[in-house]
């Protein structure tokens, strides 16, 4: 398993397009250490690999559904600012072989 260092945390943040200040990096590093220690502890439990993974730590249900009210969308210029290249308002991509677009709804 990859060792989570402060450099790894900074690199992940950069890949996700945001920057951490040194205090934030330290905090995340500390939290990761706690998580990793917990994982090491779990790994030591006999038969843990045979258990089904859980999505939620305990049974929790809710009743909330969002009202169907649209909000103002992000401006096209801002959305497109993350794209490497474009044609008009569309994001330009290298052509991929085949038409995966059709396949996704299988």
């Amino acid at each position, binding site marked *: 398993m990859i060792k989570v260092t402060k450099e790894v945390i900074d690199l992940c943040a950069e890949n*996700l*397009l*945001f920057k951490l200040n040194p205090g934030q990096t330290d905090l995340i590093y500390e939290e990761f250490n706690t998580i990793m220690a917990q994982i090491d502890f779990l790994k030591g439990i006999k038969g843990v690999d045979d258990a089904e*993974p859980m*999505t*939620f730590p305990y049974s*929790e*249900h*809710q*009743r*909330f*559904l*969002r*009202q*169907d*009210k*649209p*909000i103002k*969308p*992000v*401006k*096209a210029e801002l*959305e*497109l600012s*993350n794209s490497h290249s474009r*044609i*008009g*308002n*569309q*994001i*330009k*991509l*290298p*052509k*991929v072989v*085949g*038409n*995966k*677009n*059709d*396949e*996704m*709804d*299988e």
Partner: protein
Amino acid sequence: MEYEPVIGIEIHVELKTKSKMFSSAPCTFGEAPNSQTVPFDLAMPGTMPVVNQEAVIYGIKICSAMHMNIARTLYFDRKNYFYPDLPKGYQITQQFHPIGTKGYVELVIDGKTIKVGVDNAHLEEDTAKQVHLSDVSLLNFNRCGTPLLEIVSDPDMHTGQEAMKYVETIREIVTYLGCSDGKMENGSMRCDINISLRPKGSTTLGTKSECKNLNTIANIGSAVDYEIKRQTEILESGGSVDQETRRWDEALKRTVLMRKKTNAIDYKYFREPNIVPIDLDEGFIYDAVHSMNKLPNQYRVEFRQLGLTDYQIEELLSDREFVLVFEDCIKLGVKSPEILWNFLMVEILGYLNKNEQTLQDLKFSRDALVSLVNIVHAGKINSRQAKEVLAIMLEEGADPVKIIKDKGLEQVSDTGAIENFVDEVLACNAQSIADYQKGKDRALGYLVGQVLKASHGKANPTLAKELILKKIRPCGSNK
């Protein structure tokens, strides 16, 4: 060997909500590319999905119309795949607990009713739209996150006609419920059809091909018929059908290979951890089911009772807006559903099409239309005059009673007045009288025409005919 085709259909229905399935971005069509998203649709860090209530209501309504069991708790799952059309790297869907399970729809084909099972219907999100040019692909995220209901049929169909009717029936259901605009040409209803053949009498399914790119009902029939023929030829020549994805080529009028399917893709489904299971109140489900619009099959029964023919009913049902106008007019006391149908589906529809207008653009009220129909039904004006009045109503929106009065179109039904015209005509047409009395029926029509001409079209033709007959009918004749 005789083969039996087996057909199953998956339909993706875009739900007509105002906002997306899991975000509050607007759901629109035809806006500038990449202008209809919020950070969640672009998978920005920290954004979370929140389920759209209206999409759930629409899902419940459609499932209920298809006689399905409705889930009391909503669960969502991740379908993982890496492709630019979904920036999260997965689609949120309902792989393991669909909102609707085990229902059916009824298809009426050549007077016979057949049931097609619906295995499940599940809520999910649409992907971004890609356009593949010769050297690059273009990506537009506007569609990304639009609510979809995927409806999966059982493999219960066996012909192109059944496949067409099934899709048509689903389209009727979703459009009549107001849950989708069902426009296949715009992609708001997309069909994938699985077709296989098996020896007649066998219960084992053969190897299937999946057919995509079917954007009209007619294409569905053509593609299925083509695939049945193609697979039959392969099997009869001793070959075996490969599992492949094909698409309908409109220009070539045949299905063409897109890709071979060697292994099933492992999407590594797992429960969507960002959506806690959602319990649906019984009251919520009850309200959704009991606020459903009337469905086409209910209208079919009602319209048949009104005396419309099957042809008239199907023509009318092809546009729900016309059905609503028709229904309103019936409630307002129209005396002749048939005359109303003719006005709506011939004169009014023709005018609107010609002028690229919709029923919303009509310049007159439903009351005015009912009034005109009842005037015609009472014989106060004839059908030619009614068309003239309706044309003025369509152009100017005036009240039919006023138009008839202003134009002096009201039929003369006063026996005395018509009798004068009849006498005048008979005096000048001795030959026609003789012809009629010798058995030439056409001579009677000519005489009625002359009376109408003399009265400038105002004489009631039925009355005119009766009076002429009274005067020229040979003694003892009942004709």
